[in-house]
Structures are given as structure tokens and as C-alpha cells.
């Protein structure tokens, strides 16, 4: 209408504009604020802010820096996995094995180093290869069979769950790994994967830094590189992407391997923070990663989404999960609270983008 674009300060915008800058004559008529709101990641940003403000009011301890650091730590371990899971989802695929794959990686590193009495870096390196191989296998099976990735990764999810348990029991005689904290290279690896540093008297976990760096990197790849275009293309329409020369199989397999890489990274964080790993962990985490990506505006059907959205999605998970504790609500209702808050956030997200796109 008669409104002008410069009426809205640009500072509230997340970094990147949409993939297409071409105006079609209709959108140019609409104010910048509405056009921004139409973006899924702006909706989730507002949802995250709403949840944050809510807990600032409901839970006084949240106002302290150390509480925020704790919330961000929880968000970061979800968020690092939610990023590649989101990219994979934009690429039109799905990974149910992501949660247990984290534990597989941690178990591999720990047992390889311990059983052969090697420097822990040897275990870390082997775990990376194993994680990438799992990602490759998932991707390869999906592109070769053409079966839905839901089925393929449901299979690998069950396989990994069983293998985690059976191999650990076979190798260590127990169902948890041995403590590796007194082995060579442990302290060094802990500095890389599980360090923390102090900012203004608040202990910040290093995973928060990695999370934000990875998110910036993923955003750049998605919006500024050819590979990023490929991801959108294979998720949007595989056949037309192939017709215009996009290497569909390469893109899909590499996306699964990217999930493998992140699983390795988080697995190493778990191992070096807690020294031992229980083989039964990780089940159910895949749904949390997927939820964070979906809340962050990634469609379950592929072809749309962003890397910054899942950052807010993961933040929302961390914020709600810890906020409930900071607010000292009855713990019996914990899961129900979590669900209600998340549904609420998604509704805000949806409402915002609907209102914004309605003409």
C-alpha cells in the first residue's frame, strides 16, 4: 500500500534474504515487516523470543547469566545435530538413526582406544570414519533403493541400537564403556570437544561456540554456494533437479554423511564430558533433533527451510526444558509442559507467517 520500506529498521532481520531477489510486482507492494514475517525463520525467532520473555517473567533465576549459559549449553548439544538434520530435511530426506549414531560414535572412540591401549586421538579418528561410513550407508541405501529414507533409517536406527549394546557387551563385558580419562590425549581432546571458558564470571561451554559457528557456516553454504542450491533443488523436485544437471545422489549421500559428522562431534563431546558412555543412551534424541528442525521452519516434505531457523528451534527446546526447572513447576507435568510450550511456539510461528502472507 502506501507504506515505505525504510519505515522498518533493518536490525531485526536475520542475516540472509530469501533465495530469490526478483520481485514479482505483488510483494513489492507489501511492507518489509510483513515480508520478513512471511519467512519461516522470523516466525520461529519471534516464538523463541516469546518463550524467552515468558520464562524471564515466570522464572527469576533465568535472569542470571549463568542460567542463560546453562540453557544455551543444553540448546547447543541439540542444535549442533539439528543443523545437519535440517539440511538433510531441506534436501528431502530424513534420518531416524541420528540419536543412536551419536552414541555409536562415542562408544567406538572409547572402546577402540581403551581395548588397544592407544592414544585417545586414534579412537577419535576411527570414530569419525565409522560415523561417516554410517552416513554414507544411509545415503547410499536411500539413493540406490529409492525407498523412503524413513524406512531405511528406521532400519539403521534399530541396527545401531542393537550393535551399540551387543558389541559393547562383547568387547568390554559390561554394557557401559571403561573410563578413559587417565589415558594419553584425553586432556587435549577434552579441551577441543568439552572445554569451557569464563566470560564476565560466567562459565561458557565451548559447544555453544561450535554451534553458532556451524550455524553461520551452514547458512553461508545454503545461501551462497552451488552446493546450497543443490540441496534446495533435490529437496524440491529430485527429477527436475537431475534434469538440469544437479548431482542428486552425491548431494543426498553427502547430506547423510554430514549428519554422520555432527553425530561424531556430539558423540565426542559426550565422551569427553562424561568419560564413559552407556550403550543404551541416545534413543529418542532423533525426534528432538527433527522437532528442532521442524519448529525452525523446515518442511517435512523438503525443499524449504533455513539453517538459522533450527538454531532458534534448538534454543526453544533448551529454554523450555530448563525453564520449567528454573520456574520450579511440578516435575510430574514436565513432558506435558514441554509439549504445550512447543506446540504454542509452533502455533505462533504458523500464525505469524499466515498473517504475514495473507493479502
Amino acid at each position, binding site marked *: 500500500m502506501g507504506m515505505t520500506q525504510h519505515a522498518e529498521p533493518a536490525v531485526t532481520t536475520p542475516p540472509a534474504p530469501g533465495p530469490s531477489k526478483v520481485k514479482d510486482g505483488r510483494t513489492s507492494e507489501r511492507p518489509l515487516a510483513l515480508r520478513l514475517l512471511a519467512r519461516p525463520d522470523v516466525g520461529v525467532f519471534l516464538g523463541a523470543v516469546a518463550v524467552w520473555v515468558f520464562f524471564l517473567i515466570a522464572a527469576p*533465576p533465568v535472569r542470571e547469566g*549463568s*542460567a542463560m549459559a*546453562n540453557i544455551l*549449553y*543444553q540448546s547447543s*548439544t541439540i542444535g549442533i545435530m539439528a543443523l545437519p538434520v535440517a539440511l538433510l530435511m531441506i534436501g528431502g530426506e530424513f534420518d531416524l538413526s541420528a*540419536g543412536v549414531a551419536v552414541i555409536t560414535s562415542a562408544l567406538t572412540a572409547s572402546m577402540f*582406544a*581403551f*581395548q*588397544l*591401549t*592407544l*592414544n585417545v586421538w*586414534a579412537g577419535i579418528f*576411527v570414530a569419525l*570414519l565409522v560415523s561417516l*561410513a554410517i552416513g*554414507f550407508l544411509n545415503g*547410499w541405501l536411500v*539413493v540406490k533403493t529409492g525407498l523412503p529414507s524413513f524406512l531405511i533409517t528406521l532400519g539403521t536406527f534399530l541396527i545401531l541400537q542393537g550393535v551399540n549394546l551387543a558389541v*559393547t*557387551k562383547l568387547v568390554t563385558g559390561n*554394557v*557401559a564403556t*571403561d*573410563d578413559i*580419562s*587417565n*589415558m*594419553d*590425549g584425553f586432556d587435549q581432546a577434552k579441551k577441543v570437544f568439552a572445554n569451557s571458558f569464563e566470560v564476565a564470571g560466567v562459565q561458557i561451554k565451548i559447544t555453544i561456540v561450535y554451534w553458532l559457528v556451524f550455524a553461520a557456516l551452514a547458512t553461508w553454504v545454503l545461501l551462497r554456494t552451488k552446493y546450497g542450491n543443490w540441496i534446495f533443488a533435490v529437496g524440491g523436485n529430485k527429477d527436475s533437479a537431475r534434469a538440469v544437471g544437479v548431482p*542428486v*545422489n*552425491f548431494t543426498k*549421500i553427502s547430506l547423510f554423511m554430514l549428519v554422520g559428522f555432527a553425530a561424531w562431534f556430539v558423540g565426542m563431546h*559426550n565422551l569427553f*564430558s*562424561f*568419560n*564413559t558412555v*552407556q*550403550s*543404551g*543412551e541416545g534413543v*529418542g*534424541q532423533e525426534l*528432538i533433533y527433527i522437532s528442532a528442525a521442524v519448529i525452525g521452519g523446515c518442511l517435512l516434505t523438503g525443499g524449504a527451510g533455513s539453517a538459522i531457523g533450527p538454531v532458534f528451534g534448538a534454543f526453544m527446546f*533448551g529454554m523450555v*526444558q*530448563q525453564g520449567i*526447572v*528454573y*520456574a*520450579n513447576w511440578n*516435575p*510430574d507435568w*514436565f*513432558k506435558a509442559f514441554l509439549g504445550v510450550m512447543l506446540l504454542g511456539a509452533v502455533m505462533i510461528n504458523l500464525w505469524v507467517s499466515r498473517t504475514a502472507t495473507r493479502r
Partner: protein
Amino acid sequence: MDRSSLSRSRRFAPAVALAAAAALTLAGCSSSSGGKKSEESADGASAGKATTPRMTIALVTHQSPGDTFWDIVRKGAQAAAAKDNVKLVYSADPSAANQANLVQNAIDQKVDGIAITLAKPDALKDVVAKAKKAGIPVVGLNSGVSEWQKLGLMEFFGQDETVAGEALGKRLNEEGAKSAVCVIQEQGNIGLTQRCDGVKKTFTGKLQTLNVNGTDMPSVKSTITAKLSQDKSIDYVVALGAPFALTATQSVTDAGSKAKVATFDLNKDLTGAISKGTIQFAVDQQPYLQGYLAIDSLWLYKNNGNYMGGGEQPVLTGPAFVDKSNVETVAQYAAKGTR
């Protein structure tokens, strides 16, 4: 299109890299401390072998996969089976209906005895009756201390979770605790809830409960940290499993809290933490003993007609306290994964 050659080279790359890595690592980066080499070779308890005729016993539990506790129960059962010339058939499922199916499976196999856990007694009532009808003796272990007689089981080996909780609550009073938080790693698990309820009964201070996501350790850590900073008066964290107690000690540090940590159940890392003083004490229900006695009792019944507890009283395996005063004795067995 060169898609196939692309994917083929990618398929072999990891294998080649793995082989290279193995050669590289084995060649020159051994760890000078820790690792398998430093671990003493440890044999399980062994007491010779009975010459009685071979018999088959089924042990059917509600274990969920990958739980350190149940692994110890199973090791106890295996030790007794090896000694008694028993073929042990182990199966488990956390779902009560599936556990009942597994018991039916054992009946169909015509085993000589069945040992079961009664996490959800009602679901197992029918199948226990069928076993009795088929003339198979059934004993209970671990959970169901108030139900085993109603179901007509011969004997029971375990601890009363509520009684164990009460014992821990009394100990907290002795330690001078004023405010404690009971950390539940699996929302809705009856045994865990009973433990916290038991603590609440005897503890004279304030007791709160806290639910954490037990399958995600970073989440467990932040949630306990959050609780400790939300309520700074908390001076004791009560964990319901050894791995969670170890994580709780990190939360205490993160939150800058002065709270002490106590727990139910043991593992080998936990005995180390008790001797270092980072964890004050553990309530041990001796899972190895539960598995061992369940199998041994069925052997005794078959070969000598004995009833432990006279068929009237449960045989209690806990609560036994492990603290700095006795941890050294227990630690050597925990290192083998049998305590």
C-alpha cells in the same frame, strides 16, 4: 552420467582410510596410561561344578536394553548356572505384555524352573498360573516384594524399594541434610518413584523430585544444574542410578553449589568416586546376589526340596550401604562388573 562411478569410489574410500588409520595408529600412538593393558585380568566367582543332572532354567526380566544394573543381575545368574550345571535361558522386555509372552515361551520350552521380575504383577498373573499348572516352579526377584505371594511364587529375592528409600532418608538425617532433590531419570517408572517416596517418608528435611531425560547425558547435566541454581538451599542430590550420580557431581560444580551427592546402585566408576569423596555413599541392593540366588534356589528346590525364606518371607538382598569405610572391599568386585 557418472553417478555410479562416483558412488563406487566413495564406497571404497572409507574402507581404505580405515585400513590406513589402523596401520597408522597401531604403529605408534599407544597410550602410556590407562586402557586395557592396565586392567588386571579378573575372573568371576567360581565354586566348582555340581554333578547333578543338567537342568534348564529361564530368567525373564523387565530389563531395558543397555542398563548397567541388569547386566550385573545376569552375571550373577550366569555364575550360579555355571556352578549348578544349569542351562540358563535369559530373556527380557520392558513391556509387561511382551514379558508375559516370554514367560509363555519358557513354559512351551518345558524348562525346569522360571525366575521372573514382577515390575507389573497384574500382567503376569495368568502366565504364572499356567506355569504352576504345568508343574514348573517359579521364583521372583528384584521387583514385586509385596506381590510375589499373591501370585503364588515359591520364593522372592530382592529389596523393597520403599524400604531402601527409607534407609537412605535416615542416612540423610544422620548426615545433617536439610534439603534434598531426588533425580528420576525415567519419568513414570514405578521402582524409581517408590525410592523417592521412601526417602520422603523418613527424611526430616525438605525433599523435591526432579525429572531428567535419562537417554541424553548433556540434558541430565543441565537439568540438575538448573535445579541447583533455582533452589540454592539444596544440600544433597539423590541420584537413582550410578551414571546419573556421576553426572550430578559435574552439575554441582557447574552450578557453584555446595550440595553433596548420594545414590542408589553401584558401578565401578562410582566406587572410584566414593573413595575420592566426590560421592558420599551408595545404597546397594546387590543385583548379582538377586540373579545368583534366584537360579541357585531353583537348583536347591529340584535337588533337595529347599525353600529359601521358608516360602513365607522374602529374602532381602539390600539395602546395603557402600561408603568410604567399606568401598575398598567392594571396589575390586565392582571393577569386574559384578557389584
